[in-house]
């Protein structure tokens, strides 16, 4: 858990770069592999927080992978997603929702068009 927190904090937090995100993704996938061998110290069936933590860690690793993949895919800066290597926003390529589908292999990224209603998308200038 500490290793996952460290890599996500260092490489996939506010300011992001392709190199860091690739490293983060590799690291997360490595952790996912070692997660397959996770063991519990608490074998009891009553208020087993150890088990809860282990289950949560599995889900968080899945999410961390998807976060890194999405951030890597989106080669622009938009809202809270800030790529130092792509400082501008790119509506031509990325005015879309990023979706991720679980597969037997690595998850697969695809996009969904944005339905624009009341608020027109525009650059934030403040």
């Amino acid at each position, binding site marked *: 858990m500490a290793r996952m927190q460290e890599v996500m904090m260092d490489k996939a937090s506010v300011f992001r770069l392709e190199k860091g995100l690739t490293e983060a993704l590799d690291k997360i996938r490595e952790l996912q592999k070692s997660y397959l061998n996770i063991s519990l110290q*608490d074998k009891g069936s*009553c208020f*087993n*927080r150890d088990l809860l933590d282990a289950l949560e860690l599995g889900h968080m690793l899945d999410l961390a992978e998807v976060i890194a993949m999405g951030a890597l895919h989106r080669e622009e800066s938009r809202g809270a997603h800030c790529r130092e290597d792509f400082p501008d926003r790119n509506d031509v390529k990325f005015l879309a929702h990023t979706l991720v589908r679980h597969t037997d292999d690595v998850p697969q990224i695809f996009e969904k068009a944005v339905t624009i209603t009341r608020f027109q998308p525009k650059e934030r200038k403040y």
Partner: protein
Amino acid sequence: MKCTFIIYRFDPAVDKESRYQEYIVDADSTDKILDCLNKIRWEQDATLAYRYSCAHGICGSDALVINSRVELACQMLVRDFKTGNNFVIEPLPFFKVIKDLVVDLEPFFDKHRSVRPYLINDQKPPEQERLQESKTQEFFEPALRCILCASCTSSCPITRTNPDYVGPAALLRAFRYIFDSRDAATDERLEKINDTDGVWGCKSLWWCTDVCPKGIPITKCLGQIKRVIKKKEKAAS
């Protein structure tokens, strides 16, 4: 610095009786007691059971007896205690222990539900919201700070002697609706708690006010309920 934690342990699947286990934790003076418990669980003993959720004094999950006093583990720092970095951690008193520091709070919430902790008003809602005067709101505002951590009810000597006593936390919630001008069930609410299992169980011992981690003047609020009941009785006679 080294801190010694002596922690109450009981696992119904293994232990016949409760026992105390000692842990040495390397902690800073600004660490919360909850941080220390986490350190123990993460680094030494993953079987230690205790509740916590938000870790910032909002959810009310981690009320424990720390050095003989009921406190929230997430609100107390190591340096807050003048016990030479020695700590004794026990579950809340009065309630049944499920495991280690986790107690069964179901009876507590049963009592909480018994005072009908929600707005009762059968009138048709107005077009906009039901307004509350800010002065009235100020009066019961302290009661809104309650996070249902059960510190008061488990510390109350009356709760311990009369298992049917509804307890300070539930009465505080009743207080909140009795003095809310939008609530239409004031009389029923007062009648429901007008006995020694209700508000007259309170003997103004101030333990609830003393331990409340949110600083709510619970005893005073309960006194206001008593005063309203007496006033109404006087007016009726």
